[in-house]
């Protein structure tokens, strides 16, 4: 028998080494459960089944089997046995995680102990196996829901250590251990007080660097020259098992998947019930997802004010999230359920039935609680079903909880032993109709409600009286009835009994204390009262009112716009190129590209001709400096140098500001890291392909870029009295830290060059240099593969950075919102740096006291390629007007002024070969304006990206109506929903609005 069980030598073999105290315990009896409905596995149910448990395992299971002679038999009288459930995501038996404490003063270092990591959120050295200690309350809650085993791990930090699979027997910890678990991962740094990582992108960078380090550490161990001992890497270096990634939403899940792909990890994802919103991408991963059974509460919409503040996205998610599991099932994504995040354990069945009502087949639900997790955890040899040879782990119910969420649980057995029970298994369900004969009169007793919470009525002809003071014991039922209504005197006391032979009897005591027995004929409920049928009735599966769009919110689209073949006829075309401004000109677009520009173009066959008489057409507006569409913090503001973090990892395709920017004619933006650090994070240029996944928004032809920053922000001048210790605190130090880092990057590059200059056979056995993501990015700058966009204000620091760059042989690509650019414009022109400016901001801090609105004019005059940027989701919607301010303040030529937001920022981003002007061969990123594009009186009517119309007034008008209608329907549904009014309307993820200076520890606040 033991041979059948992998990993565990034999059950309870471990305890053999323990000193035996007191009398020995005998665990090897045989028990037979008969007359049960047995769910042997998720896809096999036996009626009138017998389950024989022996030696803690299932030894026999089948229909109508006679119990073996040596077995103690229990007649379950039609009760239901379910195989033990398995929760893949639990912290059962783990040490309690202390409450997250926030420190007002920044903490840069963590306490070092042995070989722990430099970062306080890395605990890969932790082993749940060594920390595990069974805990009564937590186990009881799980057992009462039918769980018998869990994968448990600490839930603290980015690297959480390795989990362990345990049963819920609550005996010796070591006896409960079933096998090794997964390494746990999350982007949340948990209780670490250290500032780094302070953002989602910081967590991602830390995770990537640690996996890179683990690979390197593996080679360190193989090589002769041993490096420093690192406890976390020691565990990860050769680990080939699974990684359990906790994700906050569907985009976060895809971020986890990108890391898994990069480092070849065997990943399992803990989901969020948002997966349906990007089902296709998630199904493509072909990896299992663990789903919590927590769903949005009914939005509060009882007053006008309340409903205004509930977005269509939240309304939709409220309606659609319950169907998430069914969607995953439909797409063939394997999934398991977890009790994780349930507010109270008793919400489990309600959660599961929410999924079932939303379309998940009950057997799929059972599979997600048994077979799927067993297989995931590599425990299918002993868990996941009740087939012969598996562990006798199961729960017993009066009726199947898969059919009735209020089913009565009786007991849960682990390893053939009852670990937790509510009632004896012989418990009798009294519900039904009972004929009682009292003093020759035929009474009918109708009992309903739940088996343990009975209610009922005694009826005689058309008279009836409710039963009172009801007590339900295992096989005994007592209650009282005032009998006056039936013309008897006083209150009678009743007692009904079920005998082991299956017969039933009753007795009653009348008002004089005289006891009288009576016969009892029981049958099923003949006819329930109307009231009860209403309650019991399954609500008819309603068709969902919510639409599913990309992104799944107001103004999202069910289908992406098509690449049109279109001739825009007879407009004023501002080419931002050699052709200048063309009156009465046409633009021909097809296959996403501008095919021709000129007067009197022929429309090719199949082209749509759009009359643009009176309209103006410009190239799509480009914003060199934006922070829209970013999740989880715009600044990794902890360290002075954070070149390892990447905005590209945290692009948020669900930001409504993408759509709003399109409505302002914007088509391409550079998403920049904030300005908290001299060397900030890597930037990401995106096209505003509203509805696409983050990955598909990325501007593939844009070279890599990075954000630097100078001045007050990086020296933390306005950050408060606590922020006075980070180097640098002066403009002097800003120079030296940047210099030092570039020197390091140069040496890093030399090290790798030297390594690669060796012949491959010589490299073998040699320790390669450690891969450093930060220096890698800086090295790319030195190699002119990555370009610097530097936040800057005052002239001294602008000169400093240009000279520093020159001394390392590279060039600063663009100084962004460089408000004193006009003072050193000649030097910038000579260096070859571009200058991006605010149109007219000033006086918000000391370093902008000399900012002037004629800055773009003066820079342009000196020969600097100049642009106007937004740094604001609001301002970016009207960058055309901002460009117009150069006409206002210094009479800039109008075509030149328009270039400030078209071809010039394209040059600064090195994408001018693709976008920024209207020339044949370029991407068809176009805006049709209803008037002069620089006039404040004009607005965009249509915005195309890659020849696809992502915004038009016509579509917008339709979408407005659709949003309104759909909102109204869903609000009505919410008002009718029984939960309405109690729920807090949890804000849907979506837009996070950032500016350059936002320095919030993203992980320092409560995300629940």
């Amino acid at each position, binding site marked *: 028998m033991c041979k059948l069980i992998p990993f565990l030598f034999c059950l309870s073999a471990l305890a053999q080494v323990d000193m035996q105290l007191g009398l020995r315990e005998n665990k090897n009896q045989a028990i037979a459960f008969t007359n049960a409905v047995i769910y042997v596995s998720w896809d096999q149910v036996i009626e009138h089944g017998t389950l024989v448990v022996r030696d803690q395992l299932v030894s026999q299971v089948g229909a109508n089997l006679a119990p073996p002679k040596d077995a103690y038999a229990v007649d379950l009288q039609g009760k239901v046995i379910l195989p033990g459930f398995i929760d893949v995501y639990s912290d059962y038996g783990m040490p309690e995680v202390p409450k997250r404490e926030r420190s007002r003063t920044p903490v840069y270092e963590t306490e070092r102990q042995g070989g722990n990591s430099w970062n306080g959120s890395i605990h890969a050295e932790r082993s749940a196996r060594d920390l595990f200690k069974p805990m009564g309350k937590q186990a009881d809650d799980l057992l009462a829901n039918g769980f018998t085993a869990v994968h448990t791990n600490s839930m603290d930090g980015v690297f959480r250590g390795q989990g362990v699979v345990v049963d819920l027997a609550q005996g010796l910890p070591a006896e409960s251990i079933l096998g090794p678990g997964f390494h746990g991962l999350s982007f949340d740094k948990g209780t670490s007080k250290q500032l780094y990582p302070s953002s989602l992108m910081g967590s991602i960078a830390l995770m990537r660097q640690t996996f890179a380090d683990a690979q390197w550490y593996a080679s360190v161990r193989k090589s002769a020259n041993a490096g420093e001992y690192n406890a976390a890497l020691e565990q990860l270096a050769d680990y080939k098992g699974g990684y359990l990634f906790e994700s906050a939403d569907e985009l976060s899940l895809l971020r986890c998947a990108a890391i898994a792909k990069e480092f070849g990890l065997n990943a399992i994802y803990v989901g969020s019930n948002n997966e349906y919103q990007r089902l296709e991408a998630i199904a493509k991963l072909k990896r299992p997802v663990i789903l919590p059974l927590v769903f949005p509460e009914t939005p509060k919409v009882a007053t006008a004010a309340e409903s205004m503040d509930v977005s269509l996205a939240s309304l939709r998610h409220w309606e659609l999230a319950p169907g998430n599991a069914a969607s995953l099932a439909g797409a063939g994504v394997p999934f398991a359920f977890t009790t994780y995040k349930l507010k109270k354990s008793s919400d489990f069945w309600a959660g599961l039935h929410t999924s079932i009502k939303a379309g998940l087949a009950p057997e799929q639900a059972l599979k997600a609680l048994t077979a799927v997790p067993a297989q995931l955890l590599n425990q299918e040899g002993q868990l996941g079903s009740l087939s012969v040879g598996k562990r006798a782990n199961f729960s017993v119910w009066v009726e199947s909880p898969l059919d009735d969420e209020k089913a009565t649980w009786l007991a849960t057995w682990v390893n053939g032993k009852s670990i937790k029970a509510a009632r004896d298994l012989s418990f009798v369900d009294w519900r039904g109709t009972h004929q009682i004969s009292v003093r020759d009169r035929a009474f009918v007793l109708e009992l309903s409600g739940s088996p343990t919470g009975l209610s009922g009525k005694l009826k005689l002809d058309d008279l009836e009286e409710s039963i009172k003071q009801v007590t339900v014991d295992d096989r005994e039922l007592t209650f009282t009835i005032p009998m006056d209504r039936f013309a008897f005197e006083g209150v009678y006391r009743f007692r009904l009994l079920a005998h082991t032979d299956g017969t039933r009897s009753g007795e009653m005591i009348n008002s004089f204390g005289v006891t009288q027995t009576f016969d009892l004929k029981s049958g099923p409920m003949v006819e329930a009262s109307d009231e009860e049928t209403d309650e019991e009735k399954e609500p008819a599966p309603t068709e969902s009112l919510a639409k599913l769009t990309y992104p799944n919110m107001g103004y999202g689209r069910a289908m992406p716009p098509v690449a049109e073949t279109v001739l825009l006829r007879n407009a004023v075309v501002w080419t931002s190129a050699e052709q200048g401004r063309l009156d009465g000109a046409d633009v021909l677009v097809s296959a996403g590209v501008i095919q021709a520009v000129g007067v009197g173009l022929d429309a090719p066959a199949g082209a749509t001709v759009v009359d643009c008489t009176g309209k103006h057409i410009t190239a799509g507006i480009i914003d060199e400096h934006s922070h829209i569409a970013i999740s989880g913090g715009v600044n990794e503001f902890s360290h002075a140098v954070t070149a390892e973090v990447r905005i590209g990892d945290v692009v948020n395709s669900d930001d409504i500001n993408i759509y709003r920017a399109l*409505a302002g004619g914007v088509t391409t933006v550079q998403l920049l890291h904030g300005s908290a650090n001299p060397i900030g994070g890597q930037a990401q240029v995106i096209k505003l392909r509203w509805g696409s996944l983050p990955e598909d928004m990325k501007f593939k032809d844009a070279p890599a870029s990075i954000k630097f920053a100078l001045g007050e922000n990086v020296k933390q001048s306005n950050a408060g009295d606590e922020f006075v210790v980070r180097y640098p605190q002066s403009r002097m130090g800003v120079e030296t830290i940047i210099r030092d880092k570039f020197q390091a990057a140069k040496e890093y590059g030399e090290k790798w060059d030297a390594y690669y200059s060796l012949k491959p056979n010589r490299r073998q056995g040699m320790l390669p240099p450690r891969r450093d993501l930060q220096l890698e990015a800086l090295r790319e700058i030195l190699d002119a593969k990555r370009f610097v966009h530097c936040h800057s204000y005052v002239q001294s620091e602008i000169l400093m950075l240009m000279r520093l760059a020159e001394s390392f042989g590279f060039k600063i690509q663009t100084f962004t919102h460089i408000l004193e650019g006009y003072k050193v414009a000649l030097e910038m022109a000579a260096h070859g740096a571009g200058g991006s400016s605010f149109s007219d901001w*000033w*006086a918000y*801090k000391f370093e902008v*006291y000399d900012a002037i609105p004629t800055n773009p004019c*003066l820079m342009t005059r000196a020969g600097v390629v100049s642009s106007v940027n937004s740094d604001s989701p609001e301002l970016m919607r009207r960058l055309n007007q901002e460009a117009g301010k150069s006409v206002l303040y210094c009479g800039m030529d109008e075509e030149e002024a328009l270039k400030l937001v078209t071809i010039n920022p394209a040059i600064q981003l090195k994408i001018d070969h693709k976008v920024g002007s209207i020339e044949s061969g370029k991407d068809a990123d176009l805006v049709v304006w209803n008037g002069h594009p620089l006039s404040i009186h004009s607005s965009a009517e249509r915005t195309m990206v890659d020849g696809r119309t992502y915004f038009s007034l016509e579509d917008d008008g339709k979408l407005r109506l659709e949003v309104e209608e759909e909102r109204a329907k869903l609000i009505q549904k919410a008002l009718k929903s029984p939960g309405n009014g109690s729920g807090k309307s949890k804000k849907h993820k979506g837009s996070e609005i950032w500016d350059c200076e936002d320095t919030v520890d993203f992980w320092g606040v*409560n995300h629940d």
Partner: protein
Amino acid sequence: MINIFLFACLFHDQVPGAPQTQAIVIKGGDLYTVSHGVLHATDLRLEGGKITAIGEVSLTDAIIVDAQGQRVYPGLIAPMTRLGLTEIDAVRATNDTAEVGDLTPEVLAGIAFNPDSELIPTVRSNGIAVAQVAPGGGLLQGQSSLLMLDGWNREDMALNMSVGMHLKWPNVRVREGWWVRDSAEEQRDKMSKQALALREAFAQAKAYHLAREASRIMPKNTRWESMRPLFKGEIPLYVEADEYKQIQQALEFTESFGLKMVLCGGNDAWRLADVLKERGIPVILAPQTRLPDRADDHYDLPYKTPHLLHESGVQFCISIPSSWAVRNLPLQAGIAMAFGLPDDAALRSITLSTAEILGVSDRLGSLDVGKDATIIISKGDITDTLGLNITAMYIQGRAVDLDNRHRQLHRKYATRLERAGK
């Protein structure tokens, strides 16, 4: 014609205009009167700081300013600004915008007004001649003052030192999201405490006022004394409230205390237009250059809010409740025009409507005989980036220096480029 620029170049700072001693005739300009349409190529006579004639004007003893081909407007009025109260937002020493505590009705913005702020000339040169300077701070913030933007000190600049009492309506919405530090409970608690504190304060102030009216002998309470003009109906309560529910509450509050109310901010005012109109409550709108408040809002909702109010007949004007950014005021009106607001209504929303709401329409806001000679001349449409180009400003007939820090810095560094042959 006086060359203002030549005059300005001689000084580092701008010198206030001298009091008008000689009549000025603005000749041949298109008069955007606001009160009675556009009068093309019409003369305007300014005398003794007042507009004395329009149309057939006497040229006797007058300085003639040729405005042919240019537009003449009344000087713009910026409500709800922080001008003169702050110089550099991030430098604490330069900020006098808020007093400590939630209830500071006694403080008066004009007291702290810095007439030499470098910001003022940059605002002026875009046509803003008069500004309401309002305090910030907790809930009951204090009183605002109305000042002309040219002069030696507040005493010769002030039009009205106490224009109204300012109340920032407590937040009513439980904020959710990871960036919110207080729990929903803590927030609700704070909100209800604030609402209670407000009611109590007003009840106490009113009780004090009634006691004083009844000539009871009692010590003067500086705080409550400052609120008496409010209860006497001499000044309105300016209530800053954006959200629907806030506005609803504020309407109920001012009604129950019998106060005159001006709504400031008013993002959701259009949703309550009927009540506002019925009670005659004017709105000083927050800028249109903001994002929609709610994800499902029309992308252009902020832009078209003035239009929506105009359509429903609610009196409103446009504000930029800020300091340096106030110079964009005429362009704000331009954005509203792009999204439906008719030209004349747009112009009115930065001139006459503002004057009416601030109680100075007898002196300001339109080109009418008898009003202050506070006017501006622009080469083009002041509501457009491509038109705004102020060539002259007169405040009560004083010629205002239109130079500013930005123009000075521009000239300095343009010189550098010139020397380099650029």
